[in-house]
């Protein structure tokens, strides 16, 4: 319980600091407070002045952030300037799309990674090892945007690109861990004594690598969310990745601060869950 509370407090502080840092970065980004509408030739000087004044209110970051936190406590996350909608509404409608993409990407990426790493470690299949390692190396070299465009042309669901990003990392890490564990003296002894592959894996290898794999699980969640941004932009998937891109282009302070906090929260929670899942001894 104490561990849980400590983690929760740490997450809260980090999320709040992440939000403040995000707001500061946006505030000091070039062209903050500039609106394309100012170039509209129909606009009168008074209208242009009003647009500038409205943006000027966000220039004082401490005042903005305190005001923002006060409103957030009442459930109001502010209004997006680029999309002219309440941020809460945007997040609620867009988050499920990204979560769907991330879950699918993680399941397929992890599934493929483990499905290839386990036989390599257990059966010492060098041909499979070379083929899978080469594939993982190629996938690591190709930028996410290239995969996304390729999937668009091939009419393949863009969400699967996330799996291609997660797979090589999971595969390489899991393969190295499993191969190393498979060569440990107690595993070799168990094999020599005639224990079956399944038993060796379940009783002697898996418990050994589980703490490290759970850490990788936490990291892969943030990896998947990061990959979701270019994927959603290029494949036109209406998730929070696409929203984050638009918000960054429009220097949309409210939207960016909220998205920074949400992504930070999800990443920290995933890492925290991985941390809590590990036995105490393994952490030490």
């Amino acid at each position, binding site marked *: 319980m104490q561990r849980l509370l400590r983690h929760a407090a740490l997450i809260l502080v980090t999320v709040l600091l992440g939000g403040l840092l995000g707001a500061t970065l946006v505030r000091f980004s070039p062209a903050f407070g500039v609106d*394309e509408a100012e170039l509209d030739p129909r606009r009168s000087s*008074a209208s242009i002045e009003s647009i500038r004044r409205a943006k000027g209110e966000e220039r004082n970051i401490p005042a903005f952030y305190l005001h923002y936190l006060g409103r957030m406590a009442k459930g109001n996350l502010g209004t997006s300037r680029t999309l002219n909608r309440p941020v809460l509404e945007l997040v609620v409608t867009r988050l499920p799309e990204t979560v769907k993409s991330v879950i699918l990407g993680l399941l397929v990426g992890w599934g493929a990674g483990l499905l290839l790493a386990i036989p390599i470690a257990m059966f010492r299949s060098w041909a499979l090892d070379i083929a899978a390692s080469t594939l993982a190396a190629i996938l690591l070299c190709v930028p996410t945007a290239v995969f996304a465009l390729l999937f668009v042309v091939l009419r393949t669901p863009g969400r699967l690109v996330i799996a291609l990003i997660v797979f090589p990392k999971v595969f390489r890490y899991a393969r190295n861990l499993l191969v190393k564990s498979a060569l440990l003296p107690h595993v070799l002894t168990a094999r020599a004594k005639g224990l079956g592959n399944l038993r060796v894996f379940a009783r002697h290898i898996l418990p050994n690598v589980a703490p490290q794999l759970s850490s990788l699980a936490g990291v892969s969640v943030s990896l998947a969310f990061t990959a979701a941004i270019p994927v959603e932009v290029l494949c036109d998937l209406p998730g929070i990745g696409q929203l984050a891109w638009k918000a960054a282009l429009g220097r949309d302070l409210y939207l960016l601060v909220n998205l920074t906090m949400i992504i930070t929260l999800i990443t920290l929670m995933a890492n925290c869950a991985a941390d809590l899942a590990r036995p105490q001894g393994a952490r030490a």
Partner: protein
Amino acid sequence: MRRVLFTVLSLWLAFGSARAQSATQLRFCLRSEPKTFNPLLVEEDSSDTVRYLTGGVLVRLNRKTQKLEPGLATDWKVSRDGRTIAFTLRPGLKFSDGTSFSAADVAYTVQQMMEPSLHSPIGDTFRSGEGATESKILAADKVAISFPAPVAGLDRLFDQVAIMSASSAKKEMAVLGPYYVSENHAGSYLMLERNPNYWRQDAAGRPLPYIDSIRLDIQQNRDLELLRLERGEIDLVNSIDPEYYEKLVKEKPALAHDAGPSLDSEHMWFNQVPTAAISDYKKAWFQSANFRRAVSEAINRQDLARIAFRGHARPAVGIVSPANQFWFNDKLRPHPFDQKSALQRLQKDGFRLHDGVLRDVNGHVVEFSIITNAGNRYRERMATMIQQDLAGVGMKVNVVTLDFPSLIERITRTFTYEACLLGLVNTDLDPASVMNVWLSSAENHQWSPGEKKPATAWEAEIDRLMRAQASTLDDHRRKQYFDRVQEIAWEQEPFIYLVTKNALSAISTSLSNAQPVVLRPQVFWNVDELKLAPEVAATR
């Protein structure tokens, strides 16, 4: 029992196929999510598209003939002083939700539009003087609207004003146009259904529009949009780039349409802001008409049109595109490409070309940078070609690409730039729509925004002429004034107009009655008359 089952099955199949044949759905893409459904707050393309498809207007500008036609109003009259317009409304009309339409709705819309705190961009086009706007309901079908000062092109401006209901609980979602918004899947797509209360009928008395629904997919990726058109997943692309157009001509020529020069132009200008943080000697170059004319003559516009735009653009003449049939000054011609003449002009100001390097009267090497927005490949190409052309008269040009907000910041706030290459998107034909560009005190007077008093005699003359045309009701006298403005702008070249882009679009062969034009919205301006082939309808 078997017979009953057979009859039921036959009826079901017949009903199903009849439904499939009658339910037609037009599909095309929006490049971004609409920012608003309030027609008075529309400022970007996507919201404008929704407004055009759903909004009912008192008078409609026919995009093909460029003449006004009756809309919700059967008749209208502008008073002699140009301050008042009286409309006679079409009787018995209803909004999409069944609420009755009357003069009270027109009065309500105008009152909302002119509300100062709303900062409606459309409202701004009606603001010609200090004071309140008054709407007088003369009868259920008659309304008169009075403005504090004469408004130039008053009747034409109402083409942009979609009438809202004063009493509907659905507020701006109750509409009088051919379609209404039935579903909004944020970030994904919008569904518009045919308005059952739409007033227009075809010559045979059949109710319009012909197409039952429109699906607007949010698709910001242009490559994907074209790919979807080629696959038959969408029916039109309202505006396409020359490169896509050429690709389409090669692969599916029947889909590609070039309606000729549009209202949109590409231009560059030099920073003439007195307080700008640039050297005084450079300010002196930029403020010289000889220098600007020389730069203009040293640029090969034909090549810009031919290479950068693959031949789908024309050398620009000036403020007004030749596509604007009434207001274009046809005495003017594009500045010719003549580097000898350019050098002669420069010599008048004391510039000297030596060893391929141009120097001013004080020996400063003529070098400046042009900023433009990153990611716009046509502007990037044009900037590079201008760089090469100007090297021919010894000028060294550096091209700097910036993301759009940074560029806007430089040209509107910090003025830390020397020259800028940008485009002007014209949505209105009337010169009143560019008052905020040509008046020296205006914020969009981009070469020197918000001048306290006109910096030069010719700017003072433009101010006078623009005000004169805005306060005159006789269109022919207005044209005389505006022709002179065009001539001054052509002589002084505060904006160096480069090319006028063609209106390019792509239309599926299954869509009939489409007549692409140069005015926005180029393809679906007659949306209520568009028809889809039955075989397409059956597949959706």
